[in-house]
């Protein structure tokens, strides 16, 4: 027994060092944070810098005669920039202070606002021919001329409701092909602002009072738990289940994929029989699984560390329940054991990576399942579907992890039952996989199908 443990340790140590002690691993390890940094920091800057401002003409038919002037003012670049600033500030209303401060700083806000479109407003006669104006949108423009961007047609009852009706009219918008949909939003915001202003003026109301009456600030809720209170962060709560599901899948893929390729490589370069003279197939499989598990744990530790550092930097660490990290580690170990056993059995059964693809397809589909369910479970973590999925291996660990990361975590007994079911499933799968591993290692020739694998398992 002692010798067996020693041999498993030696195999695991070699697997770990072989995976970790090379440039590829270090590059791979840093690649994910680098990509995230690129997306979060560099990409938006590049996007904003490279977007040329929209320039063009917008024609307006205003039968009311009370909107066009206001619309011209509302579509002025400064007015557009002000609306964008208000919108960004509202979006950050419930964000943690550090994030809010960082995001609303002048350079960050400037980047968020970008360059407002430069629009020239062309007022048409109230009785202008609509068909002719529509054709104007499709007329070719000289290279240095302004594009014809939109035709806004205000309805006659847009400012004053028709007699006997409580409803106001609105507007119609015509645009040529290939127009940025963000321009539509800008036009809507401007039309809305100028229409509201015209209606208030017509009804002789005080706009400040109306806005004050309409305004109800949304409260930032406080989550109350036993012995603690913390500010609820909706975005964080929505994001967290995805992060946990992602970390689980990512950890399994790192270890599992390497396990598969290395087993195939050992088999194809004939080192396997040399190893089998020193270790039993079960010792070899156990050592390989443990070695790659250590690799995955190292990667997860690095990513969790980066995540915690980021939360601390933004003073959001209080939003995270530390117990979740413990659950993540435990569910990772259970899921990893199950999937790693399958990966190693497939690696032992085939002769080359190409042959592994058909056997790996169902495994990959199962690994992708959490992504499909994450939104549904995250939104309704205690629905019958979510609860049932928490007890069906092999997706139970993913489902439970998503539920744990949600705003309303499940009861403890369900968490423990998921662990128990997951562990039992992992043991059964490992037992079955070990039999395939044992037989498959020395098999060469025609790649096996599922029925062959079952026959091997029976024979072992």
């Amino acid at each position, binding site marked *: 027994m002692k*010798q067996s443990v020693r041999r498993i340790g*030696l195999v695991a140590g070699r697997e770990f060092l072989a995976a970790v002690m090379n440039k590829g691993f270090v590059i791979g390890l840093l690649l994910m944070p680098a990509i995230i940094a690129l997306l979060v920091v560099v990409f938006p800057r590049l996007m904003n810098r490279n977007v040329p401002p929209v320039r063009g003409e917008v024609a307006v038919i205003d039968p009311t005669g009370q909107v066009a002037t206001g619309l011209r003012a509302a579509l002025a670049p400064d007015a557009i920039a002000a609306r964008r600033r208000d919108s960004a500030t509202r979006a950050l209303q419930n964000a943690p202070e550090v994030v809010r401060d960082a995001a609303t700083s002048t350079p960050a806000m400037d980047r968020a606002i970008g360059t407002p479109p430069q629009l020239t407003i062309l007022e048409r006669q109230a009785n202008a021919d609509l068909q002719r104006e529509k054709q104007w949108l499709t007329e070719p423009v000289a290279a240095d001329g302004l594009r014809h961007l939109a035709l806004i047609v205000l309805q006659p009852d847009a400012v004053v409701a028709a007699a006997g009706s409580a409803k106001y009219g609105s507007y119609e918008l015509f645009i040529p092909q290939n127009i940025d949909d963000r321009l539509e939003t800008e036009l809507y915001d401007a039309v809305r602002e100028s229409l509201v202003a015209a209606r208030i003026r017509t009804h002789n109301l005080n706009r400040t009072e109306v806005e004050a009456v309409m305004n109800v600030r949304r409260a930032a809720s406080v989550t109350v738990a036993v012995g603690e209170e913390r500010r609820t962060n909706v975005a964080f709560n929505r994001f967290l289940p995805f992060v946990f599901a992602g970390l689980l899948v990512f950890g399994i893929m790192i270890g599992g994929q390497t396990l598969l390729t290395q087993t195939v490589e050992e088999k194809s*370069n*004939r*080192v396997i029989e*040399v190893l089998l*003279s*020193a*270790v039993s197939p079960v010792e070899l499989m156990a050592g390989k699984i443990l070695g790659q598990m250590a690799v995955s744990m190292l990667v997860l530790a690095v990513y969790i560390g980066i995540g915690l550092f980021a939360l601390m930097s933004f003073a959001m660490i209080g939003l995270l329940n530390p117990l979740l990290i413990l659950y993540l580690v435990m569910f990772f170990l259970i899921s990893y054991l199950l999937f790693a056993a399958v990966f190693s059995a497939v690696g032992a059964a085939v002769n080359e990576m190409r042959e592994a693809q058909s056997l790996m397809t169902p495994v990959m589909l199962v690994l992708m399942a959490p992504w499909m369910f994450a939104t549904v479970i995250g939104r309704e973590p205690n629905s019958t579907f979510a609860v049932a999925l928490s007890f069906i291996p092999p997706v139970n660990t993913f489902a439970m992890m998503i539920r744990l990361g949600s705003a309303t975590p499940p009861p403890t007994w369900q968490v423990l039952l998921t662990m128990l079911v997951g562990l039992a499933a992992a043991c059964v799968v490992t037992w079955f996989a070990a039999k395939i591993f044992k037989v498959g290692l*020395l098999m060469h020739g025609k790649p096996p199908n599922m029925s062959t694998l079952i026959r091997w398992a029976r024979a072992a």
Partner: protein
Amino acid sequence: MQLALELKRVRKTFGTTVAVEGMDLAVPRGALYGVIGPNGAGKTTCIRMIMSILFPDSGELSVLGQRSALEAKDRIGYLPEERGVYRKMKVGAFLTYMAQLKGLAGEDAASRVPRLLQEVGLPGVESKRCEDLSKGMLQRVQFLGAIIHQPDLLILDEPFSGQDPVSVRVLRDQILKEHRRGATVLLSTHVMANAEEMCQHVVMIHQGRKVLDEAMSGLRRQFDPRTIHFEPLEANANPSSLSGMTGVERVESVDGTYRISLMPGTDPGVVMARLATAVAPARIELARLRLEDVFVRIVSEGEHSDAVSQALRASVTAPGPEGALA
């Protein structure tokens, strides 16, 4: 007599194919046994069962006094027919790893590596990656992986396969050195000349069955070829009188050399003395026993035609990927 290895009525099938049938084998401790037979005879299956890599369908096995090689893995050195290395691993690290798997402490294992590499003519390669070595060098490294822990039982499956003459010589010397150290050696080969030169005892396997289990000395007596090779000193000598000599059954001439077959019961020494007197010899010798002849004779007796015998002879003499002993 203490046995290093014992097989009793061992049988192994793969589906409907019988790979090994009724195999009995007893290898005493300290012996150097050769398992011979053509490709596909069942040698590797036998060895894999001895190593507990495969398990017999029926029969009993004992390795170094244990019921399974799994219980004596650390005392066995094994060089499989299909052997490889971790290509990215350094030679020293690979050998140390193999020795550690066989129970040696890390420091002890690492300290043996330079000396062993020196002995097989590969000084200073421990810091090179395995993928940087030539095939011949790599095979010597693989052999060292099998002996680095000084095993009590050394099992070598086709050890000379794909080796150049220099490597064959180095390996042969190392195998004999391990034998002198006291290790029991069991080697399999399909090129019978290899076994002929090295082994004290040979076991022949054909179609999964043992067809011969005999000491080389006994074989030489039992399968006395009764053939003398004679080459006259003078190229224009007339040796027509040889065929009429007492005890001579037949004389065949091939490229100036004569193959003289003797009648049963004839003393070759007497005939050789007469030959030397009759015609001045440049070379006169008693033909050596060739295992391939023995093998072909055994398997052909009563069951094979001449055509089959020829095919069998071709299968056991053609080196194929294997080099002959230097």
